[in-house]
């Protein structure tokens, strides 16, 4: 009791003010939760109803139909094994890089750590197009992997590599290397040290990263749609086709339900692995745990990792840029000029260049929505920092994370069902796409803002209060400036997510208002080098835009938030 007192002092307030603070937290939590309710829970609920009560009566016949259809079973099976394979491949390739970042000092480490974010936030369509450049028939390696599962797996690794490296690397770097060194001194061979000491300590972060990779691969849409051809289809692609091509909404709903069940199961497992992670040993700061590579084996580890990263990321993206300038009539800006071309054969065709303006507009609106709701939610979760983590804040936190695991296609499909008819007909509203993007971006925004707010020492607020600042001025002079950096980073993230969002937008974009990813996809769908070149030019522009945004994020990233 004696020792605990200084902590309790800051945790205490009179009962009345505690109730007041709880009230305001509830008020702050309301807008984001209502938003999620209307634009996420309701559409998902509508999908459930559509699948389970197709014509106003409970009817599970469609489930039977789906599960007995061999082509559907193939889709289910492929989705499952493709995600497992992607996850395993990604973890195996990324673990050595996580070790390198966690343990060794080398030139350009900080820059590389930030640069890893780029593939993670690159639009799926851009990655798919750049993979086409590498593995397609005329591609670099001479073998046509297009339409094979390898193209998909490589693209998934490309995307999720950073998830594993950054999640595991961040945990790994906090582990005291002297634990490993003392095991060595006690006679353990390097492999034993890894198995007996290191692995048990990083295991839960590997599990966390792996479950995210599995989730992203399981709900992968743009990659599989573009690289999978006709033989490789995931649930997401099937849902899209059943809706958009065949208008079988019942079947699509059943598939969406199946996917939802798997996603929720994975999320629960993820939650458990996260909770286990929080009982970790004493953490060390990076400066204590990293050292320069001493032995030749260590130098080889660094070199081979850098090389594999260069191949994995540099080759596809480099090739994308190069090929976007390489027109049939030699080097030049031909493909870029073609973007302004309005000849497309149909009346609804608009010059692809318009998509840039659409994307920037939608991304701006989505960012504003996501930031306003995210700030409100983060404040509700953190409170004034005096109460620690209550059940209320954990619950709000979890509710806001759910969209992270749900596929964008589900969101788009749900919007299509729900907002197409009264009471809320938003089908023709320009807001529908930014709202969907905000739903997808919100978990990231909250994840960035919460640590920013938590990092404010409650004594700073007290000091300001003692110096005469009213509660409102405390918020304005202390909270806002300190959290401002996190806010800027969150804005960048939301913007990047919106720029690249494809799954939901595919359902919602009107023919005359495509976003950049949609325009790229449409160009791919038209035959000929000329259209493929346009897709590459547009992808290059989108990539550059995303890189600019990510650079901004990284400049403003609050210290101590290292995983995303």
């Amino acid at each position, binding site marked *: *009791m004696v020792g605990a*007192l*200084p902590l309790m002092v800051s*945790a*205490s*307030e009179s009962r009345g003010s505690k109730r007041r603070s709880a009230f305001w937290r509830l008020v702050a939590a309301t807008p984001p939760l209502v938003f999620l309710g209307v634009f996420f829970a309701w559409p998902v609920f509508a999908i459930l109803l559509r699948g389970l009560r197709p014509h106003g009566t409970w009817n599970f016949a469609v489930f039977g139909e789906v599960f007995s259809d061999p082509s559907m079973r193939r889709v289910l099976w492929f989705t499952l094994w493709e995600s497992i394979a992607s996850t395993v491949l990604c973890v195996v390739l990324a673990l050595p890089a996580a070790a390198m970042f966690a343990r060794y000092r080398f030139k350009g480490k900080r820059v590389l750590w930030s640069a890893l974010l780029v593939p993670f936030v690159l639009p799926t369509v851009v990655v798919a197009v750049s993979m086409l450049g590498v593995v397609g028939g005329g591609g670099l390696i001479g073998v046509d992997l297009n339409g094979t599962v390898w193209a998909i797996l490589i693209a998934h690794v490309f995307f999720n590599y950073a998830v594993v490296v950054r999640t595991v690397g961040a945990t790994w770097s906090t582990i005291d290397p002297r634990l490993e060194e003392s095991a060595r001194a006690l006679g353990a061979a390097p492999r034993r040290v890894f198995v007996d000491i290191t692995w048990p300590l990083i295991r839960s972060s590997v599990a966390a990263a792996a479950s995210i990779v599995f989730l992203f691969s399981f709900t992968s849409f743009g990659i599989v749609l573009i690289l999978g051809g006709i033989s490789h289809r995931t649930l997401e692609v099937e849902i899209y086709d059943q809706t958009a091509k065949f208008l079988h909404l019942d079947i699509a709903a059943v598939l969406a339900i199946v996917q939802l069940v798997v996603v929720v199961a994975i999320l629960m497992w993820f939650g458990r692995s996260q909770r286990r992670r929080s009982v970790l040993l004493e953490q060390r700061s990076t400066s204590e745990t990293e050292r320069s590579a001493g032995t030749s084996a260590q130098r080889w580890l660094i070199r081979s990792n850098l090389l594999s990263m260069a191949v994995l990321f540099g080759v596809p993206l480099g090739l994308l840029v190069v090929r976007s300038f390489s027109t049939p009539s030699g080097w030049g800006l031909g493909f870029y000029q073609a973007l302004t071309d309005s000849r497309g054969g149909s009346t609804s065709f608009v010059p692809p260049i318009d998509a840039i303006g659409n994307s920037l507009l939608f991304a701006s609106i989505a960012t504003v929505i996501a930031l306003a709701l995210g700030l409100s939610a983060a404040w509700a979760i953190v409170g004034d920092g005096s109460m620690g983590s209550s059940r209320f804040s954990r619950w709000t936190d979890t509710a806001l994370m759910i969209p992270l695991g749900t596929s964008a296609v589900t969101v788009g499909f749900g919007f299509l069902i729900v907002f197409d008819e009264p009471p809320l007909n938003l089908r023709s509203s320009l807001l529908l796409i930014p709202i969907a993007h905000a739903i997808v971006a919100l978990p990231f925004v909250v994840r960035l803002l919460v640590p920013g707010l938590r990092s404010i020492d409650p004594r700073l607020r007290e*000091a300001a209060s003692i110096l*005469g*600042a009213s509660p409102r001025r405390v918020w304005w002079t202390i909270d806002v400036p*300190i959290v401002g950096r996190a806010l800027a980073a969150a804005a960048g993230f939301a913007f990047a997510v919106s720029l690249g969002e494809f799954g939901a937008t595919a359902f919602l974009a009107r023919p005359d208002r495509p976003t950049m990813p949609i325009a790229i996809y449409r160009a791919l769908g038209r035959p000929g080098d000329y259209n493929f070149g346009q897709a590459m030019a547009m992808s290059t522009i989108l990539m550059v835009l995303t890189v600019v945004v990510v650079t901004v994020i990284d400049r403003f990233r609050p210290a101590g938030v290292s995983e995303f």
Partner: protein
Amino acid sequence: MDSAFLSIDHVSVRHSNSTAEALCDVSFDVAAGEVIAVLGSSGSGKTTLLRAISGLQSVSAGNVVLDGVDITKTPAHLRGIGLMFQEHALFPHLDVADNVSFGLRMAKMPKPDRSERVAEVLELVGLAGFGSRDIASLSGGERQRVALARTIAPSPLLLLLDEPMGSLDRVLRDRLVSELVDLIDRLGLAVVYVTHDRSEAFELADRIAVLDHGQLVQLDTPAILDAHPATTHVAQLLGHR
């Protein structure tokens, strides 16, 4: 007492998540210009006492009267009391000058007067010319001085110091304590100074209050306290055998 500048009147504090009282029926007066040191081991309620006087902690019973005005229900930001925190709590996003002028800004002092006052106070604590420095670039002793400057800049009626030397090494601490004695003399402020270090208490204080488990066990001048400790606990705190 009529001459009391600050009057702590039967003050109790109970934390909502604890059954024991952090402060139990504490009463004492501080005269204008008087320096009271509050001595006690950790967990004795010293910090709680300062927080109750400053308004960061609401009291469950009793009254706090400052200069004839009952401020028990006044919110912290309207009390006009200076409090210097144990770990200083300097605003990391503001430079030295902006930290020091924060209270002046809150008091809506015009800008030219503000910078004049900041320069004056920084000079007083021996940090003239440090205004544009980043907080992160300061040494421990410099931070301590900035915190002190920030606290006295708005000319508070009463100065509360919560283990201000807590994180400093011995040599620096001795020097700063004698500087602080000097400064307090010059300002003529009433001071409540919380510490667990008896030498600091003896050097600074007109009277010393000893807290134990939330109760005031003795309040006397250093000489009387040294000669006649009320309990064995007090004697132990003073280093007697």
